[in-house]
């Protein structure tokens, strides 16, 4: 393009982002002791982080295959709704899901009530098994959606050909389905592994102790309880190493996009009858129950108490909504500037900068920012702004994934026309960019808002006198006010979904 400034807002944002992430990582590295500073406890955290992520990923991927296959080949009322619901855990606050799992699998939950009635030994949700259960709860739906996309990507003609050749289900599996799974499963596994690698909230609420502490949780403990900044920073370096290593692996294994694809089921595999029909029904029912029961249980427990929640919970809710909206606004502005610069082909480093948050976990960034700012402001003062900024940064990779393809096709389809009409600056933004990108912008804003609303991560490092709603909920749980906690969980869930819905709807107003 002949015209255009050498520096765009995209460049400025990318540089600021690189400075933020690079600066905090440098601060962490500066303060970190050598690896010898790590105790045996820390090495256990590293080991636990790796094997729980591997086991969570394996369980999620393996269990997802029969569910995805059943959904791919069966049509039933509510199928579309169920597939949509499978996307919900992505924006469901982690702490709410944990409340739900405790309501079902906890000591006073329905499951243990049943076991007691049968005279069987109880199971505990606390410990490594609880961490893995929660990870599977979150990632099974994600895996099902990804694998379902794989099934739907098999052209209908292949299934027609298979039917015309008289293939039995076994032959279809061998010639069509297994090759697809071989291609899709490594990416699914790695996507879940990456998510579980930086798991904090789940380990905080259900894990802990020598056998169920993740590196991310160990950072929090070193920072908060031991106030050993050097060790927290060293653990931060370990966490960065884990993320970088996993991302390197991701360069060889394509991670499929996890949302937004069409989910219509035209021309899927032939639905076999007989016992397979009953088995598919059972699998779908079991998955739906596993997904919905905890949420129903927490709703049943919390809904009646919603109106009698103490004022401090409502204060926390207002605070959280304001923070989430601010965070989403920041993330949207940054995403838009970055995506437009990337679509104009302004240098690969901008795209790299946008993906930088993937290598730094929230607690590592929080530790780094604390180190950088500690002389200037008190931890109390930095708690809320730092949380808002880190949540905005963490939402960038997701937002960019939604925006970059749309920005590219905008540039390819209308770039020349806009240039020929001298459509620039504010007029271009108003009459071309915003209307054309409204949908992905709304979607990205919804994701960013919901993720920020439900986040219980970096805020735990700092504050307790100005809690966000997730932190307030965690405090209620810790003081065993379970009914108030359940009511707060219902409020948090409603607010998170509402934020997502409002942004997403806003992007579709014109349609």
């Amino acid at each position, binding site marked *: *393009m*002949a*015209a255009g400034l050498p520096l765009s807002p995209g460049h400025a944002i990318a540089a600021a982002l690189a400075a933020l992430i690079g600066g905090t990582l440098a601060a962490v590295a500066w303060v970190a002791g050598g690896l010898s500073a790590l105790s045996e406890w820390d090495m256990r955290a590293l080991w636990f982080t790796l094997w729980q992520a591997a086991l969570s990923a394996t369980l999620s991927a393996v269990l997802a295959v029969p569910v995805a296959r059943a959904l791919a080949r069966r049509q039933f009322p509510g199928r579309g709704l169920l597939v949509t619901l499978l996307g919900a855990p992505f924006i469901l606050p982690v702490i709410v899901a944990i409340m739900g799992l405790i309501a079902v699998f906890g000591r006073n939950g329905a499951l243990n009530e049943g076991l007691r009635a049968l005279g069987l030994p109880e199971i505990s949700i606390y410990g490594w098994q609880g961490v893995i259960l929660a990870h599977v709860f979150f990632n099974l739906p994600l895996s099902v959606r990804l694998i379902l996309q794989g099934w739907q990507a098999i052209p209908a003609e292949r299934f027609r050909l298979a039917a015309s050749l008289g293939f039995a289900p076994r032959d279809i599996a061998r010639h069509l389905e297994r090759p697809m799974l071989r291609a899709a499963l490594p990416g699914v596994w790695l996507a879940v592994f990456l998510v579980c690698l930086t798991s904090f909230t789940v380990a905080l609420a259900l894990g802990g102790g020598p056998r169920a502490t993740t590196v991310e949780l160990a950072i929090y403990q070193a920072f908060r309880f031991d106030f050993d900044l050097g060790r927290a920073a060293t653990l931060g370096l370990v966490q960065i190493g884990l993320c970088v290593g996993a991302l390197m692996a991701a360069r060889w294994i394509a991670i499929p996009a996890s949302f937004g694809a069409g989910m219509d089921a035209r021309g899927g595999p032939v639905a076999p009858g007989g016992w397979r029909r009953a088995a598919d029904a059972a699998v779908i029912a079991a998955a739906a129950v596993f997904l919905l029961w905890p949420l129903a249980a927490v709703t049943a427990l919390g809904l009646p108490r919603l109106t009698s929640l103490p004022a401090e919970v409502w204060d926390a809710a207002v605070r959280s909504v304001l923070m989430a909206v601010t965070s989403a606004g920041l993330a949207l502005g940054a995403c838009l500037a970055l995506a437009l610069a990337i679509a104009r082909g302004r240098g690969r480093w901008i795209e790299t900068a946008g993906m930088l948050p993937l290598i730094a976990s929230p607690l590592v960034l929080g530790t780094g920012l604390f180190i950088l700012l500690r002389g200037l402001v008190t931890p109390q003062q930095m708690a809320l702004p730092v949380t808002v900024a880190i949540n905005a940064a963490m939402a960038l990779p997701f937002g960019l994934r939604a925006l970059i393809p749309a920005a590219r096709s905008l540039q390819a*389809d*209308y770039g*020349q*026309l806009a*240039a*020929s*009409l*001298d*459509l*620039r600056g*504010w*007029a*271009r933004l108003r*009459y*071309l960019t915003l*209307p*054309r990108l409204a949908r992905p912008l709304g979607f990205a804003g919804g994701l960013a808002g919901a993720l920020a609303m439900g986040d219980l991560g970096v805020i735990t490092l700092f504050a307790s006198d100005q809690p966000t709603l997730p932190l307030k909920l965690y405090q209620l749980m810790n003081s065993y006010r379970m009914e108030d906690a359940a009511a707060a969980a219902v409020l948090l869930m409603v607010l998170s979904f509402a934020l997502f819905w409002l942004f997403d709807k806003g992007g579709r107003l*014109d349609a």
Partner: protein
Amino acid sequence: MTLEFRDILVRQGQFTLTADLTLPRGGRFAVIGPSGSGKSTLLSLIGGYLSPDRGRLIWDGQDLADQAPGQRPVSTLFQNHNLFPHLSVKRNVGLGLRPDLRLDRHQQQRVAEALQQVGLAGMEERRPAALSGGQQSRVALARVLLRARPLLLLDEPFSALGPALKSEMLSLLSRIADDTGATVLMVTHDPADARAFAPQTVLIENGQARPPRPTGPLLDDPPPGLRAYLG
């Protein structure tokens, strides 16, 4: 006023295009050549979407190099995407007068008149998707009419239309070009269009844009490369 290509060279990977020719004002030129010969490249050069690696492009004695596409004395009708689908017909045309769409009463009047001239009175509030292919072309032509730039580039904008509709658009275009006194360059695959619309033709072959020649004789006795292409 003339459009001069002075010793121009464009390089895109393996592909090169050279041009050293002058187009007098007010003429109508067909641009003909095999697929991939560089017809669109020539238009992109004039439109400002490509910078030449060598040489100068001069309009009315001024080098165009420093002018952004929207500031050049050029209107372009692209092969696709000539309208913004999310904007009404009125706004799509109004963008030709002011990109920020702050039109005063007089300018709004001019938009309405332009739409009337292309036979779209009463369709101001429609979106492009609610129009036929021919009507969409008319909206783009109304904008060309309003912009009244002295150079008009056509990159096969009517190729998706049927023969009758296409010749209707070409005659409407002729009228507009006459009204505005524009110099027209039209990329085409169809010798009949070239004969009907353009007295002169710029032939592009072997990476070179040749100076314009009378269309009839050129097509009656084409050089070997063009003969193979025309079949």
